[in-house]
């Protein structure tokens, strides 16, 4: 993200955004749906719980509703799961080309390691819960929803950014 200044130059963010838009357009053209990310995380979670505790999933409402929506196929046989696998490969290749591959723990200059990993895990949890409520994350709801001008998607996007701006001040120490 923007806070690490490296020797290798990043692509102009506006150009990257434009290219992402073209990708999204092609996705909609080819498959009739937009991009996503949190859906894959949901699929992985459901699959994991299903394999660890099958009795639990068949008796709990959330998993029942999930199974009903996805008509008997394995949660991993999902468009988004394959898409995210592609994202991982693509990101890895991109990192390889621009020489940005290394195991590294990144944080703001004034944040402690502890604060960073607690922040990351709580942030992750909040995204997990939030993306379920919002029926998608920045990719599935905001980006894709905006592309097809869905009221819900645009609303979610505005709420995400409103939330981020509203809370940014209180957690600024993490980043600057």
């Amino acid at each position, binding site marked *: *993200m923007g806070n690490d200044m490296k020797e290798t130059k990043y692509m*102009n*963010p*506006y150009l990257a955004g434009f290219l992402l838009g*073209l990708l999204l*357009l092609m996705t909609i*053209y080819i498959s*009739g*749906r937009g991009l996503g*990310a*949190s*859906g894959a*995380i949901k699929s992985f*979670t459901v699959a994991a*719980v299903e394999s660890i505790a099958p009795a639990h999933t068949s008796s*709990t409402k*959330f998993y029942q509703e999930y199974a009903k929506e996805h008509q008997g196929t394995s949660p991993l046989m999902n468009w988004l799961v394959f898409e995210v696998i592609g*994202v991982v490969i693509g*990101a890895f290749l*991109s*990192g390889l080309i621009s020489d940005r591959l290394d*195991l*590294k*723990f*990144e944080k703001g200059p004034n944040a402690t390691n502890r604060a960073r990993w607690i922040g*990351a*895990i*709580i*942030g*992750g*949890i*909040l*995204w*997990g*819960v939030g*993306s*379920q*409520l*919002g*029926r998608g*994350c*920045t*990719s*599935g*709801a905001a980006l*894709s*929803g905006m*592309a*097809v*001008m869905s*009221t*819900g998607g645009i*609303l*979610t996007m505005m*709420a*995400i950014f*409103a*939330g*981020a701006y509203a*809370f940014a001040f209180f957690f600024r120490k993490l980043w600057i």
Partner: protein
Amino acid sequence: MVGVMAFVHFGLLDINLVYINPTFLWSAIVGGLIMGLGFVLGGFCPGTSVCAAAIGKIDAMIFIFGSFFGVLIFAEGYPAFESLYKAANLGNPRIFQTLNISENVFAFLTVFVALVAFYFVSLIEKKVNKEEVSFFKLNKQNVLMACFGCLLLILSLTMTDRKSFFLKLVEDENFVKNYPLEEMTPDELAFRLTCQKCEQLRIIDLRNAEEYNKWSLPNSTLFTVDNLFEKEPNLFLKLKRTKRVFVADDEMTERKAAIMALKMGYKEIKILKGGLDNFTKEILQFEPIKEPKTIDEQYRNRFRTKAKIEIAELIKNNKPQGPVEKKQKRALGGC
């Protein structure tokens, strides 16, 4: 958004088949705010965390672990979330319908606001980072992108959308009347209907549903002009090794639809000469010519008398297939 609009405008995309995220008012807002807080704390969104983890960022991996946990919390605590999750279901409205403004106005405002915001944000960034993140620089890339946008705008303004283009094309009665189309005479249709070994024939019935249900020819499908522009019904016009004949009460309706179909690139399309009105008169209500003089008239008497009975039988036994099956299934999307 603009790209999707352009694709729809030029008939490349059937928006009815595209997934539109549903709107659940409160859950969208609360979920969004939670995600906003997660943004500030975690520094990623799910998409960027996956990318960052792929190039070895450990903090991103921790973030992903957290998000699995978050989904788990939601799943296990679902009874507590459910009322909020399902409250205020507004269906799948699109923003311009909700705001009751035109699609174009909304798109224009969005692009305008975005450009202004990008400009000011880049100013702020320049100040804070003391680093050039050019948004407004006149370099090759930006000029190219701007040109692309302008081209799209000009094309959309000067070209009508695909459907109106075709509908306008067939407004001119003279053009429609004189357009060279392959015609099928009532006798040929009668022959093909009663012939077992002939090439497959598909009858595309353009009358309204009421008339169609009253009586229809075997192997016929109810079809509307709107169907021409939809994706699933179109597959039906593409079937190979079949001839298609457009039928309606009058020939003009047949001609209009057939011209549009041909212009769209469909092949093997014929029209029934004189329409079904003529077919009914000539074949179904055929009265033999008294004292046939020529051999032609004798043949005609023989053929049509036989065909009249056979086709009447076929129509009686034919169960209307109903409208062309519209599997207008939207793609399933969302997270």
